[in-house]
């Protein structure tokens, strides 16, 4: 039987990265995610798997180290929290523009500015709409449990390699800091140089036996060719939209109302729904697991059978816009949010549901 461990989400990320066979991690301390780097330094994977772990001089340097590692076909990642992820946006845009696979973890805290170190989901727009300059998307995974923190490390990097695009785990401070049971993924060896050459024939690894040189760049001065590059990116995003939408539904079969929430907030809402059901209120939950691509079709289909939806978010109303786009005006969609590091409890969620849908007794 697999060993069940108890650890923080941030610690689970570090363990999972080593076990996945990551080649490198580059980070910079910032609350509430510093345990990722701390755990990696404590585990010293360079002694076992050969994984490189480096505390960079800044988030900017860290993401550009990720860019360098990814350019040579390596499995590389970085982690940070909101203000640090803002600094990384330049590098993330370059990763997208150079079609490089990489994994970025954002353990969100409240903003804007230095904000607070307490949990938040206010980087939804930044993560799902691009974040940096130019037309691009990241694959954005939203974990709700420590187990998912561990599992999404592998899933995120696999998807990043599959589509040659950066992927992000967008976690809230809660799932980063809380401890839960987790079964860590099995160890697998890092890929050999031959495997990397086969999986990433585009990588700048030194010419080796190749006749031609590989160049990793996001630059193209010829507008027509740059437009073609953009078309290629968009075709990739279309493929991702087609294949990779992930979400979970709870109590939706007979639901008259739907709560839409992501990350840990979805669990708070689930508790609220369990309480509501005891009172005879038919409410269900849709939890997007991929925030991009967004479960637009699932929500559109639910919109045909329920009376209304409420999004619950740790922000002023961000995902609600995507829910409204999906629902396209057919039913009312409201938002309930807490900000600045405040976390609603299940009772508040139920109150918000009643306040927005007064017909609920």
């Amino acid at each position, binding site marked *: 039987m697999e060993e*069940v461990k*108890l650890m923080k989400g941030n610690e689970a990320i570090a363990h999972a990265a080593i076990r996945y066979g990551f080649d490198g991690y580059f980070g910079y301390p910032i*609350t*509430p995610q510093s345990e990722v780097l701390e755990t990696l330094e404590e585990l010293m994977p360079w002694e076992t798997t050969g994984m490189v772990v480096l505390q960079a001089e800044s988030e900017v340097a860290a993401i550009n180290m990720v860019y360098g590692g990814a350019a040579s076909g390596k499995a590389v990642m970085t982690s940070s929290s909101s203000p640090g992820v803002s600094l990384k946006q330049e590098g993330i845009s370059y990763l997208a523009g150079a079609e490089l696979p990489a994994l970025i973890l954002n353990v969100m805290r409240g903003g804007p500015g230095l904000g607070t*170190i*307490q949990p938040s989901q206010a980087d939804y727009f930044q993560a799902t709409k691009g974040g940096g300059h130019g037309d691009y998307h990241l694959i954005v995974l939203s974990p709700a449990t420590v187990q998912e923190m561990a599992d999404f490390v592998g899933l995120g990097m696999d998807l990043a390699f599959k589509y040659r695009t950066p992927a992000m785990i967008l976690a809230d*401070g*809660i799932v980063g*800091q*809380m*401890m*839960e*049971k987790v079964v860590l993924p099995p160890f697998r060896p890092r890929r050999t140089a031959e495997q990397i050459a086969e999986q990433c024939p585009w990588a700048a690894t030194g010419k080796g036996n190749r006749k031609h040189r590989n160049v990793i760049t996001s630059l193209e001065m010829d507008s027509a060719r740059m437009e073609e590059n953009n078309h290629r990116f968009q075709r990739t995003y279309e493929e991702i939209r087609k294949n990779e939408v992930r979400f979970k539904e709870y109590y939706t079969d007979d639901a008259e109302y739907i709560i839409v929430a992501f990350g*840990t907030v979805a*669990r*708070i809402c*689930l*508790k*609220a729904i*369990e309480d509501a059901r005891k009172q005879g209120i038919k409410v269900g939950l849709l939890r997007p697991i991929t925030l991009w691509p967004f479960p637009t079709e699932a929500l559109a289909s639910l919109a045909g059978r329920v009376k209304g939806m409420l999004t619950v978010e740790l922000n002023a109303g961000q995902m609600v816009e995507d829910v409204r786009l999906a629902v396209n005006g057919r039913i009312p969609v409201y938002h309930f949010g807490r900000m600045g590091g405040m*976390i*609603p*409890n*299940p*009772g508040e969620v139920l109150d918000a549901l009643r306040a927005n849908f007064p017909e609920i007794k």
Partner: protein
Amino acid sequence: MKEEIIIAGFGGQGVLSMGKILAYAGLMHDLEVTWMPAYGPEQRGGTANVTVILSDSSISSPIVDSYDTAVILNQQSLDKFERKVKPGGTLLYDPYGIHHAPTRTDINIVPVEAMLKSVELKNAKTYNMILLGALLAKRPIVPVEAVIKGLRKTLPERHHHLIPLNEQAIEAGMKLVE
């Protein structure tokens, strides 16, 4: 069975680690567990609290409205959490440094003289284990053996010689509330 517990006090009193040991004991006892700290920048002196949920079925929310049990170690936390204990629930608190004792009559209020006891044991670090003992005496959610197993699991080898002292502190805490 599901026990929703808040432990609250000052940073440095062992709030988070007491919660951690309880969580590990839950793990050893095959329960579902969440340990959710209200984390802060201060390591010492600031307020600290942690929500620990132990359950024999899966736990949806790590954040709850009210608690079955509260372990309160300072006045601010008492003011904040006394009203959040479920009716019929349990509130353990250390009267040391408390100016306004809890007043509710619909919950079980258990004073635990843990500070004085830890002075008696000549080791301030036993403080939170004394409280844990008192908690387990009143709410036997996990057996003491599971706590010891949890300690063995969480403490680095070099600290394993401290386990008997911790065991002693747990027993002392249990006796305090007999």
